[in-house]
């Protein structure tokens, strides 16, 4: 059972909106922590945990700290979801 990459993108956007409590967030590949208010190290973990729950995946230690932008985030997610 594979998930449509578009659906992954939409669900990831919903996770961002929930975590940052901001329904106007539109995610893009180049988006980084600097582009979102409140995206500090604390919220970064909240984001990771929310994603793990939403997609039933587990990020590796290096991935948790190493994610540079949303595109990379989504790419790792797609790999983990095998799509």
């Amino acid at each position, binding site marked *: 059972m594979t998930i449509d990459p578009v659906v992954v993108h939409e669900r990831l956007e919903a996770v961002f909106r*929930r*975590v940052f*409590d901001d329904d106007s967030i539109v995610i893009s590949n180049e988006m980084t922590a600097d582009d979102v208010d409140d995206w500090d*190290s*604390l919220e970064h*973990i*909240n984001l990771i*945990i*929310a994603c793990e*729950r939403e997609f039933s995946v587990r*990020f*590796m*230690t290096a991935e*948790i*700290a190493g994610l540079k932008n949303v595109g990379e985030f989504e790419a790792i997610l797609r790999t983990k979801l095998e799509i």
Partner: protein
Amino acid sequence: MSSAATSFDTLKATARSADPWEILGPMRRILEGKDLDYSTARILFRIVRLARKTSRAQSKNAPGAPLRLAVLAGQTSAQLAWALDLYLTASGFECELYESPFGAWRQDILNPQSGLYDFAPNVLILAPGSDAAPPPAVGASEEEVAAAIERELSGWRELWRPLAQAAIQVVQDDFVLPSLRPLGSQERNISSSPSAFYSRLNQGLRDEARGHVNIHDLDHLASWVGKRQWFDERLYHHSKQACALEAIPVYASSLAALVGALRGRSRRCLILDLDNTLWGGVIGDDGLEAIRLGQGSPEGEAFAAFQRYALSLRARGVVLAVCSKNENATARRAFEDHPDMVLRLSDIAVFVANWKDKAHNIRSIARQLELGLDAMVFVDDNPAERELVRAELPEVAVPELPEDPADYAGAIDRLRYFEAAAFTDDDTRRADYYAGNAKRAQAREASASDLEGFLAGLEMVSKIREITPLDLSRSTQLINKTNQFNLTLQRMTIAEVQQVAGDPRYLARTVRLRDRLGDNGLISVVIGRIQEDTLRLELWLMSCRVLSRGVEEALFLHLWNEAKARGLERLRGVYIPGPRNALVQDHYQHLGFTECEPDSSDPQGAKCWEFRVAAEPPQLRTFIQEEHP
């Protein structure tokens, strides 16, 4: 997910509305529902913050009892701190939080000028984490291990001392035994292993913790969650998280329950439905022989096990009551005649079986027990009854009950309604006090025309004395949970009580009362502050189980004598109106005090009363003989 999202949107809208704290009811329901995941807890906390902002903008105070809480953690404390804020706010506290700077919790305690003492918390959560107590090397000798344990314990004694002096109540996590076991099955058999070390240290902490330090059983909680789920090594390496973030909600809820208990918020009465709650089937339809209970069916065994759980709660001081839609005689017959009933009629303080609505019956049970509705937990398998009681009596806790009776006990146990800050002798005997009260009520009815005869016939003997170390737990418990006969509603931590008890500027007394029908235990506390020529009665409260017995008159005579012996000129009492203490609004007038003007030392809204010691000794008739130590 979508229905959950909608309910969060509704909550958010409420948090922005004119009554932002209307969020608390629905929020409590969510927190008591199924185990909360971390991200949902985070969303709920945001809503609390929003409500706080709204109510500040409206210059309104948050409802609930003010609580200043410090969180000192050896590892990252941010997530635990906000989650505690969430759970404590939902359970009716107006919280203010302090976190120690990362890695500096010891300095914060040891430096009297630190931010911690500036903040002046009522309660301090101390979550040291295993890093704070490195275990000895595996293979260390017995003497080395013992020395390491002693070093640790003396370190903790050092840390607890200044906190006791500052009258700060400490809730300290014990150490979680690691999930990795390099020594395999021998871990705990070898005294130098980390597991053996931490388990011995935990026991040592429990033995040493007295009064103002309460050890929170974090190792149990981690096991309950499952240690493989409890630990998250990735997050430990990433940002020194003590546990997996998904475990934060249950961690905070367990700590919040204990803090609530320390502040007198535990519930005290379990009200049980009968059909399909204590046994399977409907006794009125199926008959005594056909209900499923005890041996003969696995389901019957499950109901019997649930009854055993209720009985074990009774043994530790929870009052049991029955509220059932049944014919009274039919319902009672099960208790009298069914061989597999674990609960007996004598275990039930109030037994109500009729056809009236349950909200009405629960109100009447609360009245008969002289307990508040917020002390009640109502357990019923019928969702419609649960909904009705929730709607009519929002103060009563009504847990969701799973379909399977085998899961009943676990569903109630996990909600920690009956969390205790201490276990006193009084707790073991409480159920009997209530039985004694029922007998006294009958005696009173028999001689209703002659109250004095009834009181004289009780042969009451009081013992009025200082707050001794042995009385500290019970006195604090009474101070924090007495709502009706309580003149000032002043709450105190055990550390604060201890401080007052040893301070010559205060006159603190407890009253014990026994009578022909039994021992009532420690039932009243009074604390007066001596200021110049005046004894200012800052706290006066009494358990309602000895109402109208003349205890307050006897205690007043005692105080009058004490004041006279010390050459004081005045007794000064205050009454501060609260939600449930109208009972004592005329207390001082009744004792012969005259009303006077409040002064600057009186709390706001206080009504003040004065009694001149030089006046004639109060003419009060009591039927209580004071026993002198």
